[in-house]
Structure formats: structure tokens, C-alpha cells
């Protein structure tokens, strides 16, 4: 949907829905209610990451996409820790769990509004950030990159890159750049105008054709296998490491829960119990 509707509307809708559902979490305590609301929250939240991928892929060329995505992914590496600190500080201020949910919803809504006002999903006039930090045109950056070392992967995505046409195909890109370099300057202008023409005519491929190509691609399925097992291990670590440390390595106390908030609550309960027993 993000590729077809647009990153900004999907991101803002996702964040507003998430804020609404977080607020709804504060108005119920039955297990079925919280389970349903939390499941809906996860569905609403799942549009954020593809939106972020789309925005970053429009702002950065292949030469800088690695570090750009790495910085973006800090959201789930360090964002979790930051949000736990933030929510823990709210609990420390004496807010009840319902008030914490409302505060989280207000924060999410504020982030949604900031995105609505400030987010630019595409650089103006096709400007992209190049490795030297100075924005330049995609087409001119192609020639610039071709003069750089051949071992470098500084291969900007030209607008001639067909959809699903393996932007990772560095050989193809290099061939294209070499071809452009070898052409007389008079013809280079033609190529650039050709590129712009193709860019304007390039259409979004249909979802069915994308899925069809993905379905029979070993490149995609191998990534799925790798990604799935990797994520499974990561989730085990994130969800179960506190329990493992607690149970297996000589730590007494109540079991930590599945979710981070339950874990924080369990830890606070344990802290309370230990301070209580120390006083006694």
C-alpha cells in the first residue's frame, strides 16, 4: 500500500491509528479486550517501517543507502531502550498504567503531526544526497561516480533503473555509466534527456506483477529464509534473555513477562519486594 498510496499518508494514518488504539488500551482491563486492541495496534504500526524504507530510498542513492538504512534501523535497536526509559520515568513520576498509555498515545500523536508538517518524502527536483554531502542531480552524479574508483559501490540509482531491475546489479550500472562516458558529449545530452523522458514515463509496476516476480525469485526467498531465522533468534534474545539470566544464572525473583511493559512492571515489583525484605 505504501508504494501505491504514498509514504506520508500511510505513515501519518498509521501513527494516528496507533495513538487512538493506545488510548483505547487505557479504557479496558479484560484480557480479551487488551489482546484485541494490542493486535490491532500492531497492524496499525506495521505501515511505519515500509513508509520509512520508501522515504529513505527516495532521499539517498545506492552509494549511501547502507549507512542511511543503518541509521534508520537504530529506531528499533535503540528506540526500544529510549522508549522504555521514557515510559519508566512516567511510571516513576507516579502515573498509573492507564495514564502511561494515554501519555504514550499523546506522544505518538505529536510525532504524527510533526511528520505531517515536516516530512518531505522526496527530495525537491530530483536532488539526491551524494557521497560528498553535496546534493546534485542524479544524472550528473552518474558521470561523477564513473570517474571514481571501480572498486567503490558508489553507483547511484539512475532514473533509467527499471522497477525490480536489481539496483544491486553493479555491473549493469557500471556498463551504463561507461557507455555514457564513452559517448560524445553531444550524445550525452541526448542520453540525459532520454533518461529524463524514461523517468517521466516510468510507471509503478502492478502489485500482481511484483508478487509474481518475487514468487519465483531465489534471491527473494533466500532473503526470506535468512531474515526469518535471524528475526526468530533476535526475538528470543529480546523476549527471553532477562528470564534466562534470572533463572539460569542464579537470580531469584518473579518471572519477567513476555512484553517489555510487563517486564518493567515485574522488575519494579521485584525491586519493591527486595527493598521491603531489606527493611524487614
Amino acid at each position, binding site marked *: 500500500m505504501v*508504494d501505491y498510496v504514498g509514504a506520508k499518508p500511510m505513515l501519518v494514518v498509521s501513527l494516528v491509528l496507533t495513538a487512538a488504539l493506545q488510548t483505547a488500551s487505557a479504557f479496558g482491563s479484560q484480557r480479551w479486550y487488551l489482546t484485541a486492541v494490542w493486535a490491532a495496534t500492531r497492524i496499525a504500526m*506495521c505501515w511505519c*517501517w*515500509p513508509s520509512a*524504507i*520508501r522515504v*529513505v530510498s527516495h532521499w539517498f542513492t*545506492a552509494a549511501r*543507502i*547502507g*549507512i542511511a*538504512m*543503518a*541509521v*534508520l*534501523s*537504530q529506531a528499533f*535497536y*535503540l528506540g*526500544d531502550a529510549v522508549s522504555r526509559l521514557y515510559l519508566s520515568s512516567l511510571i516513576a513520576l507516579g502515573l498509573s498504567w492507564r495514564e502511561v498509555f494515554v501519555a504514550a498515545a499523546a506522544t505518538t500523536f505529536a510525532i504524527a503531526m510533526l511528520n505531517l508538517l515536516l516530512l518531505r518524502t522526496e527530495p525537491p527536483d530530483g536532488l539526491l544526497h551524494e557521497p560528498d554531502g553535496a546534493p546534485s542531480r542524479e544524472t550528473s552524479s552518474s558521470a561523477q561516480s564513473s570517474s571514481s574508483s571501480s*572498486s*567503490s559501490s558508489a553507483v547511484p*540509482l539512475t532514473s533509467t533503473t527499471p*522497477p*525490480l*531491475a536489481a*539496483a*544491486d*546489479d553493479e555491473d549493469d550500472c557500471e556498463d551504463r555509466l561507461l557507455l555514457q562516458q564513452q559517448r560524445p558529449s553531444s550524445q550525452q545530452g541526448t542520453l540525459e534527456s532520454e533518461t529524463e523522458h524514461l523517468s517521466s514515463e*516510468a510507471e509503478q509496476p502492478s*502489485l500482481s506483477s511484483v508478487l509474481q*516476480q*518475487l514468487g519465483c525469485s*531465489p*534471491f*527473494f526467498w*533466500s*532473503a*526470506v529464509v*535468512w*531474515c*526469518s*531465522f*535471524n528475526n*526468530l*533468534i*533476535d526475538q*528470543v*534474545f*529480546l*523476549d527471553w*534473555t*532477562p528470564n*534466562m539470566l534470572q533463572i539460569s*544464572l*542464579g537470580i*531469584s525473583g518473579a518471572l519477567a513477562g*513476555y512484553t517489555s511493559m510487563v517486564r518493567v512492571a515485574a*522488575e519494579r515489583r521485584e*525491586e519493591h519486594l527486595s527493598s521491603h525484605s531489606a527493611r524487614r
Partner: protein
Amino acid sequence: MHVADRRARTQAFAIGGAVSALLLGLLNDRFSMQVAMKAVLVFLALGVAILATIAWTILSVPASSSGLSIVLRSSVFSLVFAAGVTMYGPYSLTTATIPFRYAGKKTAATVGSLLDGIATLVSTASGVGFGPLAQSLGWAHAFFVLAGIALATWFGAFWHHRAAQSDSAKLK
């Protein structure tokens, strides 16, 4: 072990992942995707060894032990951090960089969300499967199973590396 101590060890995994993601991103941009993939293969191979070491560490701590020595505490911290570096960091390459490289900017979000969606579905097994496994086999053996899954991850990454080099795998 104090509560704050335990939390610090959990955060060590995320911090390790953050460092590793930045390192792989730099390798990807500075050299090439191929170099980054080779680094991922090395990381994942080390990850298998680290998970097995964690399992062995758990086995070596007596069940009656009420606390850990400073050396063992530091070892656990280092191991969890190293697991973050080797297992958590490479995930960003799959969900973030590969869709862009593979699909281009027009359909990167579709490919990225499919990858992430399937991976998230599979990872729900961690919630329903790992707890009972740890209860029935013990934490040490559960972590040996996890080391086996890490080995499968390595083979998946290796398959991907080979598929990326093959012309027939490229989408036109």
C-alpha cells in the same frame, strides 16, 4: 544479580546490534554489497559459536548458585553484546538494504514489508515455542537449539549470497 544489572545485559544485545548495523552499513557503502554480505556470513558464523558458548556457560553454572562471580558477570555481558553484534545487526541489512538493492525505489517498500512481515510471523514462534522448550529441556539445551537455528540462518544467508551472484536470480 541486581535488576538494573540484568536490564543492562538485555540492553547490551540491542547496543551490540546498533553498532553492528552501522558497521555493516559503512561496509556496504564504502566497498560493496558483496563485501557487506561476506561480513554478514562471518558474523553469523561467529554468532553460532557465541550462542553455543552461552549454552555452555549456562551449563557450567551450578543450579544452586546464588550469584555470579565478577568474571562470569563480565563474560555474560560480553557474550550478550557479541550476540547482538553478530545476530541482531545483520537483520537490518535484510529488512532495509536488500529491498532497495533488489527492487529499486519504486517497490522497495513492498519488498521490505513482505520480508519483514514473513519474518515477524516466523518470529512469533519465539513467544510460543521457546518458553516451553526451555522448560522441558532446560535453558542450556534451548540455547543449543538456538545455535542450530543460527546455523540455519547462516545457510540462508549463504544461499542468498550465492543467489545474488547468479544471473538467473536477478529480476528484470
